[in-house]
């Protein structure tokens, strides 16, 4: 009798298992259809499919939530698998019901084209309308990710374990994305002036003269945004700003010690620190002291990002006969223009003509919004675009995102390092500075603590006759003590806050960098001097904590004119920096 009951129960659970599998398969089909519909812009179809997904996911959930299945979960071996599958079904159902469905239903309103300004104005209403759905999706995905982390896989068979791990990985990545979208949707209306005009300072950073935060913010402009309508106000070049004889705002001792009080005295130097919130506040104060206007936020962008944006607008012919394209923008704006138009007045005319040409191209609707957003996204990913808000609540939303320009934050998934470059030549030579950053982690000690090595190779790629072949404006003409053609660079290497500086080398020889701290971050700062064609390699070893011995490592660095991949560094334990 007991055996018969057991057999019945096994059959029951088995049949429902198959049905669950079918329901989950249907969910997969719905998701595939959803993908296709979303990419073809069929938003009403996508909303219908989202409903179908909701139904199949809900069926899988109810199939695994009856008492027999519930009881079978207590069986040895099979039980843990059953409960894992049940939990997976519940999570998928939650995601379908509270994340996919609500977001799909507002898709029709928040189309990518909604971000293309019409008559100089972005319509904010659809974004405001999408806020509740996106916020709910974010909360749901965050909870789902946490639920998935809690599924017990200690006794599951490998296909179930794999599936659960895949689920965890997917959810952790999706919930991170949803978090970003939620922040963007929550921030965009208020930052774009839905409830009153907002003023922003835009810093145009020139990576031909490197700063930790990107480049010399040689030019500054004020933007006003009111209810989605953007207008350009006061513009200034850094030479318009008086030099303060002391920092315009008090600097931390660490900032002064690493980057000097000039960080707070010259507009050209506010991005010497990699902490963008500090840079932004200094720039805002300098602007206020000069123009009396207290801005609501600060944006930083660079000509390389402009090049990416030109990819969305297509080539722009200029009156001078030049054609500005995504391929030549950086070269034309950061290098060729100096040689081509040595007279600064002519340079002004050249860039004014470039500006008006790009402007008319864009105002004719001559850009693809998808490509435009992707271009901006590339700039953001490469750390070329930063945003800071003076509003504490807005800044809280911005913190930790790719645009915030924070120091790298380490967690249990990744230990993050930073390599920040500042030009010490007083010139525009960094167009010719090639940078390769490498990173490695190895356990060399008996106590299991990892040794981390950061490697930075810099090369001066300027022609051998740079001193005479390049304009004096580019080489600096020796004004700050550097032989024309040579490049002097300050390199600051930041380790995770748990790291301890051990030793450093330059080209295999013991080096004596400035060891310091920036807040709780250990820092080693070097200065390099490279003649044309010369290169140098710096290595810094840090000791990490034992619980990070197997944690993957990553490094962010000042985005230069050229993009280089990070390389892996193999560490020899007998001489980590050798």
């Amino acid at each position, binding site marked *: 009798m007991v055996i018969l009951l057991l057999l019945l129960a096994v059959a029951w659970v*088995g049949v429902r*298992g198959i049905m669950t*599998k079918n329901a989950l*398969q249907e969910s997969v089909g719905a998701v595939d259809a*959803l993908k296709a519909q979303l990419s073809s812009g069929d938003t009403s179809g996508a909303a219908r499919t989202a409903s179908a997904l909701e139904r199949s996911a809900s069926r899988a959930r109810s199939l695994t939530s009856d008492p027999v299945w519930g009881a079978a979960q207590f069986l040895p071996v*099979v039980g843990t698998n*059953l409960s*894992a599958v049940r939990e*997976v079904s519940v999570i998928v159902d939650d995601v379908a019901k509270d*994340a*996919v469905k609500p977001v799909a239903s507002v*898709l029709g309103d*928040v189309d990518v084209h909604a971000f293309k300004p019409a008559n100089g104005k*972005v319509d904010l209403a659809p974004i405001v309308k999408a806020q509740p759905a*996106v916020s709910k999706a974010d909360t749901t995905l965050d909870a789902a990710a946490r639920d998935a982390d809690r599924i017990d896989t200690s*006794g599951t068979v490998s*296909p179930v374990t794999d*599936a*659960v791990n895949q689920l965890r990985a997917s959810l952790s990545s*999706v919930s991170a994305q949803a978090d970003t979208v939620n922040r963007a949707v929550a921030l965009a209306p208020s930052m774009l002036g839905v409830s009153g005009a907002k003023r922003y300072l*835009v810093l*145009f950073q020139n990576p031909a003269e490197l700063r930790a935060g990107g480049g010399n913010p*040689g*030019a*500054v402009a004020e*933007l006003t945004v009111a209810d989605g309508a*953007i207008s350009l106000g006061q513009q200034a070049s850094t030479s318009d700003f008086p*030099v303060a004889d002391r920092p315009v705002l008090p600097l931390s001792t660490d900032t002064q*010690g*690493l*980057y000097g009080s*000039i960080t707070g005295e*010259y507009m050209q*130097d506010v991005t010497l620190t990699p902490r963008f919130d500090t840079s932004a506040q200094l720039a805002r104060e300098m602007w206020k002291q000069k123009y009396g206007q207290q801005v609501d936020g600060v944006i930083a962008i660079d000509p390389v990002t*402009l090049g990416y944006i030109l990819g969305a*607008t297509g080539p722009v012919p200029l009156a001078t006969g030049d054609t500005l394209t995504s391929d030549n923008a950086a070269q034309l*704006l*950061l290098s060729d223009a100096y040689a081509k138009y040595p007279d*600064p007045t002519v*340079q*002004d005319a050249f860039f*004014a003509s470039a*500006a008006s040409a*790009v*402007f008319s191209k*864009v105002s004719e609707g001559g850009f693809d919004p998808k490509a*435009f957003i992707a271009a901006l996204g590339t700039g953001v990913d490469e750390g070329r675009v930063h945003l800071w808000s003076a509003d504490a609540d807005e800044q809280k939303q911005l913190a930790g995102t790719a645009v915030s320009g924070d120091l790298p934050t380490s967690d249990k998934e990744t230990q993050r390092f930073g390599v920040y470059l*500042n030009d010490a030549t007083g010139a*525009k030579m960094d167009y010719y500075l090639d940078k390769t950053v490498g990173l490695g982690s190895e356990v060399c*000690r*008996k*106590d299991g*603590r990892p040794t981390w090595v950061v490697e930075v190779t810099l090369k001066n790629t300027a022609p051998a006759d740079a001193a005479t072949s390049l304009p004096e404006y580019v080489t*600096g003409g020796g004004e*700050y003590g550097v032989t024309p053609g040579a490049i002097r660079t300050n390199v600051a290497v930041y380790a995770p806050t748990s790291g301890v*500086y*051990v030793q450093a080398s330059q080209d295999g020889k013991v080096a004596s960098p400035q*060891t310091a701290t920036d807040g709780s971050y250990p820092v080693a*700062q*070097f200065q390099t001097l490279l003649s044309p064609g010369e290169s140098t390699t710096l290595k810094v070893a840090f000791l990490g904590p034992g619980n990070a011995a197997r944690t993957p490592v990553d490094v962010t660095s000042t985005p230069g004119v050229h993009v280089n991949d990070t390389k892996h560094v193999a560490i020899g334990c007998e001489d980590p920096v050798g």
Partner: protein
Amino acid sequence: MKKIIAAIVLASAALIATPAAANAAGYVPASNVSVSGSAVAGGTATVGFAAGSFTPDETVTVSVTGAGAATLGALPTTTVSKTYVASSTGAATVRVTLPAGASGTYSLTATGATSGNVATTALTVVPADGAAATAASGNGTLAFTGGTISALALWVAGGAVVLGGGLLAVRTSVRRQRTAA
């Protein structure tokens, strides 16, 4: 957005048209601190402040903050200060000897009395190799060694795998939505 682009280009003009050298001297960052020697308990590190760090012959106050004479456990933080005189080129050299039981970070700040220039460094004592954790080399995971897995478990597992695939697809669709949003 159009105007942002225009602004970018307009400002790029200004950006290039403004010679950095036209500004007052001194906007170029220096790197004037070097640390040699070893930051180990009882060791001596030499902190060098390059020429120009301070004004010639000015008084430089150096203070070091960190754990005092160390034994075990949390230590009170102590600060020691000493006054130096910069060289005729504005350089200075400071030798810091760490206590025999040194641990943690020792922050050094040098301040020029006349110039107000501030230079900093931090010496962190590298912890000795504890050599404690060698026993942890075994695999802590209890392997599943059951010979027969019920057909049911396989179905269930199959469903879960399919689901995993589905979730990857969901992920892609959410990403699309993100692009849209």
